[in-house]
C-alpha cells in the first residue's frame, strides 16, 4: 500500500476525545439501567456480545467436562466408568454443546461485540431483538442441561439420525427436548445474523466503502449470510422430526413413503455450512492479528475477500460427503468429491496471502501470533485429512472411525479455537481495559499445543486400526489400548491449558496492566474507542479514508450527531456515503419477558401441544408493548 501505511507505527491516529459536555450528554443518553432490572433490560451490543462470549465459554467448560468423562471411559478397554446409556448421553451432549452452544454463539458474540466497533457505529440496528436472541440462547442452554441432569439428556448423537431418534427407538422426552433446543439456538443465530447483516450494510462509518471493510467484518458478513441460508434447513429437519414424534407424521417413515435419508440431507445441508460458520470468523480473526503484529495490511485484500465469499458458496455444495456410505449414485458422489476438494483452493489462497504478509515482516511473537502459528500447523493437518475424507473410496474406509474424530477436531480446534483464543487475547484489553499476562499466555498456549496434538493425533491411527466412533468401550485385544491412553492423557493436558487461560483472565482482570486505547498499534476502528469502550462507543463517529484508518496520518470525524438522542448514522451500502440518522430504542425489559414466555411455551410443548397455544396468546401483550412503548431518555 501507500507510504503512510508502511512506516513503523509507533504512533497511530485516534479520534478527538470531545468536550466534557459531549461526553456527559452521550453517557446520559446511552446510559444503562441499574440493578437486576438493568441486567435484564440491556440492549447494548457490547454487553450482549460479552454475555454471549462468557455464556459460550461456560458451555465450553461443560462440553469439555463431558469430553473428559469420555476420555476417562475410553482410557482403557472395557472400562466401567460410564455405562452405555450415560456414554451415549454424554457424547451427544458434548457435540450438541460444542456445536450449538459454544462454537456458533461465541462467534456470534465476538461479531456482536466487535463488528459495530470496527465499522464505527454506536449500536446494532435492532437492539431489542438482539436482547431477545440472547435470552433464547441462554434459556435453551439451561433447558438442555436441566434435562440432562434430570436423566433426560439426548442420546442419539448431535446429528440425531432417524430412526434412532424417532419415537419408535427413542421413547420418552429425551429427543423431544433436543429438537426444541435446536430451535432455540437457531432463533438466536438468525437474530444476530439479521442484525449484523443490516449493521454491516447500512451503518459503516462514512468513507468505509465495500473495498475498505476490514477482513474480519467481511468474514462475519459471509458467515451471517450463511446462517440465513443454512439454518432454515435444520429448522425444517427439526420441525419435521418433532412432528413425526409428537403428531405422528411420516417424514422419516419409509413404510409410509418417508425416507431416512431425507433427515440426513436436510441435517447436513445445514451441518456442513455450520462448520464454515464456525471457521470463517476465525479466518477474519487471523487477518486482524497478523496485520496488527506484522504492522502491515494483509496481502491481497481482493483475493482474501473473494476467497471468503467463494468459501461461503462452496460450503453449501459439500454436505453429501457426510453420506458417502449411504450408497448414493457414483456420479453424484464424484460431484461432491470435486466440490469438497475445490474448497481447499480458496482456503489455500488465504494461507498463501498470510504467508506473503508475514514474509519479512518479523512479527512480534506475542501470544496471539503464537496461536495463529499453532493454527497453521494444526489446520494444515486437519485440512489434509479433510482432502482424504473428500475422496469417496478413502472415506468409505475412514468414515465413522476415530480418524474422522481426529480430523474434525483438528479443523474445529486447530482451525477455529486456536484463532479464537488468540483473538480473545488480542481483544481482551479492548473489552476489559486490562492487558493479559504474557508469560501465562505463552505457557497456556504451549500446554494446549502439546495436549491437543497428544489427544487427537493418535486418533488418526486408531481410525486406521479400525476403531469406530461413538463406541462406549472396546475389547482389550484390538491393539487400541496404548493410543487411547495417550489420547486420554492429552485430554487432561488440554484441560490444564484451558485452566491456565482462565487463570490468566481472572488474574489480569484484577491486577493486569491498564490498557491504553490502542495497545497493539493496530489499524482498525475498534482501537479508536477507549478501552473498554463507553456505551456510546465513539464520542465522534470516525470518517474513513483507507483500509487502515488508524494508520492514516489523521482520522476524520463526523460532526453534527446529536448527543441527546440514541441515534445511529445510516450510510449507503456500497460507498458508505452518509444517508440519514436513525433513532434506536434504549433498554427495555420487554425482550426478556417476551422470550421467557415463548421459551416456556416451547419447553411446555414437549409435554403437551397446548402450551404452544397458551404461550402464543401470552406472548401477544409483550409483543404489542415491544412496539408501543418508546422510552425517551
Amino acid at each position: 500500500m501507500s507510504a503512510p501505511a508502511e512506516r513503523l507505527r509507533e504512533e497511530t491516529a485516534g479520534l478527538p476525545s470531545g468536550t466534557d459536555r459531549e461526553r456527559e450528554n452521550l453517557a446520559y443518553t446511552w446510559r444503562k439501567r441499574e440493578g437486576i432490572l438493568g441486567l435484564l433490560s440491556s440492549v447494548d451490543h457490547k454487553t450482549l456480545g460479552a454475555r454471549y462470549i462468557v455464556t459460550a465459554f461456560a458451555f465450553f467448560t461443560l462440553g469439555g467436562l463431558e469430553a473428559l468423562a469420555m476420555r476417562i471411559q475410553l482410557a482403557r478397554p472395557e472400562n466401567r466408568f460410564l455405562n452405555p446409556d450415560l456414554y451415549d448421553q454424554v457424547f451427544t451432549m458434548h457435540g450438541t454443546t460444542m456445536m450449538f452452544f459454544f462454537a456458533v454463539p461465541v462467534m456470534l458474540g465476538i461479531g456482536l461485540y466487535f463488528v459495530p466497533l470496527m465499522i464505527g457505529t454506536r449500536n446494532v440496528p435492532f437492539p431489542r431483538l438482539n436482547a431477545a436472541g440472547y435470552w433464547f440462547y441462554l434459556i435453551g442452554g439451561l433447558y438442555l442441561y436441566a434435562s440432562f441432569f434430570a436423566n433426560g439428556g439426548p442420546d442419539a448423537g448431535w446429528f440425531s439420525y432417524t430412526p434412532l431418534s424417532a419415537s419408535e427407538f427413542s421413547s420418552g422426552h429425551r429427543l423431544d427436548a433436543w429438537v426444541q433446543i435446536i430451535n432455540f439456538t437457531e432463533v438466536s443465530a438468525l437474530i444476530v445474523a439479521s442484525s449484523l447483516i443490516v449493521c454491516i450494510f447500512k451503518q459503516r462509518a462514512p468513507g468505509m466503502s465495500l473495498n475498505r471493510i476490514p477482513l474480519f467484518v467481511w468474514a462475519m458478513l459471509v458467515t451471517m449470510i450463511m446462517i440465513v441460508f443454512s439454518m432454515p434447513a435444520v429448522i425444517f429437519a427439526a420441525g419435521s422430526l418433532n412432528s413425526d414424534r409428537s403428531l405422528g407424521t411420516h417424514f422419516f417413515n419409509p413404510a409410509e413413503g418417508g425416507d431416512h435419508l431425507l433427515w440426513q440431507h436436510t441435517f447436513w445441508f445445514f451441518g456442513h455450512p455450520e462448520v464454515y460458520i464456525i471457521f470463517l470468523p476465525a479466518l477474519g480473526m487471523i487477518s486482524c492479528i497478523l496485520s496488527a503484529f506484522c504492522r502491515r495490511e494483509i496481502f491481497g485484500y481482493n483475493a482474501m475477500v473473494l476467497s471468503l465469499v467463494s468459501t461461503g458458496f462452496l460450503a453449501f455444495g459439500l454436505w453429501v460427503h457426510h453420506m458417502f456410505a449411504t450408497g448414493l449414485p457414483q456420479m453424484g458422489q464424484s460431484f461432491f468429491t470435486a466440490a469438497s476438494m475445490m474448497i481447499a483452493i480458496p482456503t489455500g489462497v488465504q494461507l498463501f496471502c498470510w504467508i506473503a504478509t508475514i514474509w519479512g515482516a518479523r512479527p512480534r511473537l506475542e501470544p496471539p501470533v503464537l496461536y495463529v502459528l499453532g493454527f497453521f500447523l494444526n489446520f494444515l493437518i486437519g485440512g489434509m485429512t479433510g482432502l482424504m475424507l473428500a475422496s469417496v473410496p478413502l472415506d468409505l474406509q475412514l468414515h465413522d472411525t476415530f480418524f474422522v474424530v481426529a480430523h474434525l477436531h483438528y479443523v474445529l480446534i486447530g482451525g477455529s479455537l486456536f484463532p479464537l483464543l488468540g483473538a480473545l487475547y488480542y481483544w481482551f484489553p479492548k473489552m476489559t481495559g486490562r492487558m493479559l499476562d504474557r508469560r501465562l499466555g505463552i505457557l497456556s498456549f504451549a500446554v494446549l499445543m502439546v495436549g491437543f496434538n497428544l489427544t487427537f493425533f493418535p486418533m488418526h491411527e486408531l481410525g486406521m486400526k479400525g476403531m469406530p466412533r461413538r463406541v462406549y468401550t472396546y475389547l482389550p485385544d484390538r491393539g487400541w489400548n496404548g493410543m487411547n491412553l495417550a489420547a486420554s492423557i492429552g485430554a487432561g493436558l488440554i484441560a490444564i491449558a484451558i485452566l491456565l487461560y482462565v487463570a490468566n483472565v481472572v488474574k489480569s482482570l484484577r491486577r493486569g496492566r491498564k490498557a491504553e486505547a490502542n495497545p497493539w498499534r493496530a489499524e482498525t476502528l475498534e482501537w479508536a474507542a477507549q478501552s473498554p469502550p463507553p456505551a456510546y462507543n465513539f464520542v465522534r463517529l470516525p470518517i474513513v479514508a483507507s483500509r487502515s484508518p488508524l494508520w492514516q496520518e489523521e482520522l476524520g470525524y463526523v460532526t453534527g450527531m446529536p448527543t441527546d438522542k440514541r441515534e445511529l448514522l445510516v450510510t449507503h451500502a456500497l460507498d458508505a456515503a452518509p444517508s440519514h440518522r436513525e433513532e434506536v430504542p434504549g433498554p427495555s425489559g420487554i425482550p426478556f419477558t417476551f422470550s421467557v414466555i415463548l421459551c416456556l411455551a416451547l419447553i411446555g410443548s414437549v409435554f403437551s401441544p397446548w402450551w404452544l397455544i397458551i404461550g402464543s396468546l401470552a406472548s401477544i401483550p409483550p409483543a404489542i408493548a415491544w412496539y408501543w412503548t418508546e422510552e425517551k431518555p
Partner: protein
Amino acid sequence: MKRAAPGTLLLLSTGCRARYAVFDTASPEAHRIANLHWLMLGICVAVAVAVLALLGIALVRRDRGRYSDGSARRVRAVAAGAAVSAFLLLVLLVASVLAGREITAPGGPQALEVRITGHQWWWEISYPGSSPSEEVVTANEIHVPVHRPVRFLLSSGDVIHSFWVPRLNGKKDLIPGRLTRHIFQVDRPGVFRGQCAEFCGYQHAHMGFVVVAEDPARFDAWLAAQRGIAAEPAGPSAVHGRTVFLSSPCVLCHTIRGIGAFGHKAPDLTHVASRTMIAAATLHNTPGNLAGWILDAPRVKPGTRMPPNTLAANDLLDLVAYLESLR
C-alpha cells in the same frame, strides 16, 4: 477339530498389536483403497511440509526493501501456489474417481450373493438358495469362498447400521426402507473382523462379526452343513437341554430349525456350535462364556435385548450342552 482352525486364526489376527486394519489388506478392493491412501498421503504431506517451510522462511526473513516493492513478486507467488494446489487437487480427484469405480464394480454373474440384515445389535446373514428350503440363515459369522466376488445386499430391521470389514473393503450403511449393495473378493483364506460403524444405540460398540474366507470346497461343505436342520441331541443331558430350551423364554426369540423353535427376534441357533464367537463377536464360543451369557447377558453387554434368565444349575448345564452339540 474343524472348528479349531478358524478359531486359531482369529486369535492370531487379533493378537497382533501393531496392525493397521485398513492397510493390512486381503482383497483387491481394500488394496486399491490403501494404494489411493498412500498417494493422497504422500501429496498431502508434501504440500503441508512445503507450506510450513514457507511459513518458517517468512518468519525468519527480514524485508530489505519496502513491503510494496515486492508486491508483484508476491502476487506471482500466491498465484503460483493456487495453481499448484489446483493441479494437485485435480490429480487427487482423478485418482479418487478411478479408484471409486473399481471398488464398486459389480461382481458379475459368478458372484456369490449374501443378504445381511442389521439388528440392534447383531447381524442376520442369509444365503439365498434355489428354493426357500435351500436358504441358509445364520448370524454374526459370514463364510465366503476365496477368489470369488461376494455381493452383499444390505438392509436393516430397525435403525441404521453400517457394514465394515476394514481389511476387505470400505463400509456401507444398512438403512431401513432401502437396499444397499456392497462387494468384495477375498484373496486368501483367513478370518477377518468386521464391525458396525454407524452409531446404533447402546451396544454399537460390541456389534461385531467375523468373515471367514476359505477354499471353495470347504465353503461348499460348510454351506451344505448349515442347510441341514439341527442335529439330534445325543445323550440324556443334551436331550434335557433341548427340553429346557423349548420350555424357557429362549424359544420366544430364537429359531432352531427342526425342533419347532421359530423366534425371529434374535440369532438363528440351528448351528450355533459351528460359530467361533457369540454375542456379536464379543465372546469366544466356549461353554463357560455361553452359560454366562445365557444367565446374565446385560451384565456383559448393558442394554442388550437378551434378557437375564433364571435357570436351575443343572438346567443351565444341560442347555449349554445341547447348544454346544448344535454343529
